[in-house]
C-alpha cells in the first residue's frame, strides 16, 4: 500500500465514520432518554435513501402508505383516549397530524411533478415521509410499554427491526439503488482528489452535530430531553411528559437516520436491508462510548469507519468479521473496569 491509497482509504473511512457518528449519537440519545436500544435505527437509513430513490423515479413512495396506516392506527388509539378523557378539543389536532398530514403528502406527491423538482426539494419530500414515522413508532410501539425492563424493550426493538426489513422488501423490492450525487465537483487536496459528495457528508454531519449540540444546550425542549436522560422520575415531577420526551427523541433519531441514508445513497448502493449493518456499526461505535458518552461514541465511529476502510483493502472478504469483532476488545476493556453487582433495570 502506498501513501496515495492510504489517503484514499482514509477518506473513505472518514466519510463512513461521519455517518456512523451520526447514528451513534442518535442511539446514545434514544437509550439515554427512553432506555430503548434502538435497533431499527438502521432501517430509517434504508427507508430514507430508498424513498428518495422512488421519488426521483417518479413513483409514489410506498413508505407514505405505511405512514398513513400507522397514522390511522395512532389516531384510532388517541381519539378513543381523548374522548374517554372528555377532551374533544384535542381531536382536531390529533386527526390533523395523524391523518390529514399523510393524506396531504399523498395528494402533493400525486399532483406535483416531484420527479422534476430540484434535488433539495425531493430530499425534503423524502424526509417529510420518513421522519414522522419515528414519533409514530414511539406512540404505537414503545409508549405502551415505556416502563418495561431494558431487556423487553430490546426484544421489541429487534422485533420492529425484523418487521421493518420485511416491509422494506415489500416496498422497495430486492434490487439495490443509488441516487445521483449532490454535486459532481472534485477538489484537489494535496495528492488526493476529494469528491464533492465526501465533503457534503462530512460537512453535513458536522453541521448536524453542532445543531444538535445547540439544541441540547440552548433550547427548552433540548434541556427537557437532557433532564429526562439524567433522571426520568425527577424530570417527570418537573412536568416534563415522558411521552413527549419519547416522541421528540424518536423524531430526532428518525431524522438523523433518514438524513444519513440520503447522504450516503450516492456513495453506496442501498438495499432494503443495508441499513441494519450500517446501524450496527453505529452501535459498535456507541458501545465504545459505553452507550453514554457522545464524544467517545463519535471517536468510536471514526475508528469503525477507518477500520472498515483499511480492512476492506487488506482482507475484503473478512471486512464485516473484523469490524464486528472490534466489539470484543471494547467489551473486554469495559468489563475490566467492572463494578459491584447491581440490579438490572
Amino acid at each position, binding site marked *: 500500500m502506498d501513501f496515495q491509497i492510504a489517503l484514499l482509504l482514509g477518506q473513505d473511512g472518514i466519510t463512513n465514520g461521519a455517518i456512523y457518528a451520526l447514528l451513534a449519537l442518535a442511539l446514545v440519545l434514544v437509550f439515554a432518554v427512553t432506555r430503548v436500544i434502538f435497533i431499527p435505527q438502521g432501517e430509517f437509513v434504508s427507508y430514507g435513501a430508498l424513498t428518495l430513490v422512488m421519488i426521483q423515479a417518479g413513483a409514489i413512495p410506498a413508505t407514505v402508505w405505511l405512514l398513513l396506516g400507522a397514522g390511522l392506527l395512532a389516531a384510532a388509539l388517541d381519539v378513543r383516549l381523548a374522548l374517554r378523557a372528555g377532551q374533544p378539543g384535542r381531536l382536531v389536532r390529533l386527526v390533523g397530524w395523524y391523518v390529514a398530514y399523510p393524506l396531504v403528502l399523498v395528494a402533493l406527491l400525486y399532483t406535483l411533478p416531484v420527479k422534476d423538482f430540484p434535488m433539495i426539494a425531493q430530499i425534503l419530500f423524502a424526509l417529510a415521509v420518513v421522519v414522522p414515522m419515528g414519533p409514530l413508532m414511539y406512540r404505537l410501539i414503545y409508549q405502551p410499554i415505556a416502563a418495561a425492563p431494558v431487556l423487553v424493550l430490546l426484544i421489541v426493538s429487534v422485533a420492529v427491526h425484523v418487521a421493518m426489513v420485511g416491509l422494506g422488501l415489500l416496498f422497495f423490492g430486492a434490487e439495490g439503488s443509488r441516487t445521483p450525487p449532490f454535486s459532481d465537483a472534485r477538489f484537489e487536496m494535496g495528492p488526493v482528489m476529494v469528491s464533492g459528495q465526501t465533503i457534503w457528508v462530512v460537512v453535513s454531519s458536522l453541521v448536524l452535530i453542532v445543531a444538535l449540540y445547540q439544541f441540547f444546550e440552548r433550547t427548552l425542549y433540548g434541556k427537557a430531553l437532557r433532564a429526562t436522560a439524567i433522571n426520568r422520575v425527577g424530570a417527570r415531577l418537573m412536568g416534563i411528559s415522558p411521552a413527549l420526551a419519547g416522541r421528540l427523541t424518536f423524531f430526532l433519531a428518525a431524522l438523523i437516520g433518514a438524513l444519513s441514508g440520503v447522504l450516503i445513497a450516492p456513495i453506496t448502493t442501498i438495499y432494503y436491508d443495508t441499513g441494519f449493518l450500517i446501524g450496527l456499526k453505529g452501535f459498535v461505535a456507541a458501545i465504545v462510548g459505553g452507550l453514554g458518552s457522545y464524544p467517545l461514541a463519535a471517536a468510536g465511529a471514526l475508528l469503525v469507519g477507518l477500520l472498515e476502510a483499511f480492512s476492506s483493502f487488506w482482507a475484503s472478504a473478512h471486512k464485516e468479521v473484523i469490524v*464486528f469483532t472490534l466489539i*470484543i476488545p471494547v467489551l473486554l476493556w469495559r468489563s475490566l473496569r467492572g463494578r459491584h453487582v447491581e440490579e438490572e433495570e
Partner: protein
Amino acid sequence: MKPMFSPRLILGVFLAVLAVAPLVLSSFYVTLLNYIGLYALVALGLVLLTGVGGLTSFGQAAFVGLGAYTTAVLTTATELPGWLAWAGGSPWLALVVGLVFTAVVALVLGSLTLRLSGHYLPLGTIAWGISLYFLFGTLDTLGGHTGLTGVPPITVFGFELDRGEELFYLIWLFLLAAMLTTQNLLDSREGRAIRALKGGMVMAEAMGVNTARSRMIIFVIAALHACASGWLYAHLQRFVNPTPFGLHIGIEYLFMAVVGGAGQVWGALVGAGVITIAKQWLQDVLPRIFGQSGNFEVIFFGLMMVIVLQRARDGLWPLLARLVPVRATRRELDAAAEALPRKPLPAKGEVILEAKEVTRRFGGLVANNNMSLSVRAGEILALIGPNGAGKSTMFNQISGVDTPTSGEVLFLGRAVAGRDSREIARMGMSRTFQHVKLLPTMTVLENVAIGAHLRGDKGVLSSAWRLDRNEEARLLNEAARQIERVGLAEHMFDAAGSLALGQQRILEIARALAADPCLLLLDEPAAGLRFKEKQALAELLKKLRGEGIGILLVEHDMDFVMGLVDRVVVMEFGEKIAEGLPEDVQRNPAVLEAYLGGVE
C-alpha cells in the same frame, strides 16, 4: 367442578402420542415435527437464559452452527490434523468435540460480556452472530457459501438413523432429556440461585450466591443446547451451509422462546411449534398475496412479538395451561431429613463485631465521623438516631457494602473492608434489607431456602439428574424450620409477593437465619409491623440472643427498642452522641435534644 388430571397422566398421554406419531403421520408432518424438536431444543436454552435468568442472546443460531459445522467437518474431512485425527469419522465423537468447543467459546464470550450490565450481552451476541455467519461463509475449509455435503447418518448400536422417521426418536429424546434436566435444575439449590438473577442479584449475593457464576452457567447451558441441536440438524440434513445459522434465525429462536412463554420449560415447545408451523404456512401464502417472493413472514413475526410483549408478556403457555385442568402438586417436605450441620457459635460475651473510628466522607460531606461500636455474641445492640444521622451509611460500612474512608470494621477479628458480600456471608454475618428484597413469584419456602445457599454444595449436574435430593431435602427442611420459628408456617407455600409488608420483613429474618449466622444485621425490622407482630418479633430476637447470636439492629421504633435491647448507640450528624443501657440513654440530655429539640 372440572375434572382434574394429574400431571403424570398428561405427560404420559403426550409421550404416547409422540411415540406413535412417526408411524401414522406422513413424512411431511414428521419432518415438521423434527424441526419443531430441533428448534425447541434451542428455544429451551433461551427460556433458561431469558425467561428465567433475565439475560438474552440473539446469537444462539451461531452456536447451532458451531455444533453443525464441527460434526460436518469431523465426519467428512479426508485429512484431519494429527491432534484431531482421533475424532474423525464418528458423529458421536464429533458431538463431544462440538460440545467442548461450544462450551469454550461460550465461556470466552460470557466472560467478556456477563460482567457488564444486561444489555451488552445481547448486543455482543448480535455482533458475534454476524461475525461467525460471515466466517462460515468465507472460510474455504468450511466450504464457503455452498457448505459441506456428504455428512453421514448417526448410528446407534450399529443401526443407521438415515430416515427422518428414525431420527425423530433421537431428536425428541434429546429434547425431552433437556426439558427434564432443565426442570430439575430450576427446582434445586442452583436453580434458586438462577431464578434470583432476575431482580434479586443484590440479595442473592448477600446470601452467598455467586451471581456471575450463575449467569455463566445458564449462558453455557443455553449454548450447549444449541450446539446439540446443530449436531442433530447436520445429520438430519446431511449437509450444512451458512444460511440457517445467520442472525435472523438467531432472532427467530428468541421469538420462539418469548412467544411460547419465556418463563416455562414447556413454553419453548409451544413457541417452536407455533413459529415453525406459522412460518411454513406464511411462506406458502404471503408471496402469493404480495405477488413477489421473499421472506415476508418476518413482518408478521415482528408485529406478533410486539403485540405479545405489549399484551401478554408471559407468552402463550400460561394461556394454554389454563385450558388443561392439571392438579396442582405441592411439594412434600421430608421431615425425616437429617438437620444441616451448624457452625459453632462464638462464646457468649465475646466481641464478634468491632467498628473502630470509622469515618466515611462523600466529597465534603462527612456521613460517619469517628464512629466506634461493638457487638458481643448473645447481645442485642440498637443503632438509633434521627433521620439523616448516618445510620444507613454505618450499616453499609459494617455489612461491607461500602468501604470506610478511614478506620476499620472487624468481624470475628478479620477486616470486612475489601471483601465482597459473599465472603462476608460465608464468615457468618447475615442481614436483612431496609427495602425488602425478595423474589415475589417464588414461594416463601424457596425464598428462605436461598438463605441456606452456602450450606449446600451440590452443583448443576447433580441437580439436573436429581442426585441432590438428599441435600435438597435437608436445605428445605432447614428453611421450613426457620419459617416455623418466625411464625410464618401457614404461608410456607404462598408466593412471597402475596404477603403483607410486615410479614415480608419477617421472611427476610427467616432467610437470614437459614444461613446459620453468628451475627444478624437487621435494618428496621419492625417497620410496618402491627403491635402483636412486634411482640412476636421481640420474643424471637430474645430467643436468638439466648442461643448466643449477636444482633445489631437499626431502628426507629423506640418502644420496640427500649424493651428489647441490651445496649443502645445513638447517632446524630454522623457522630456517636451517646452509648449505654436503654434507660440511661433515654435520660441523656444530648439524646433528648437530638430527638425532641433543645429545652428553652
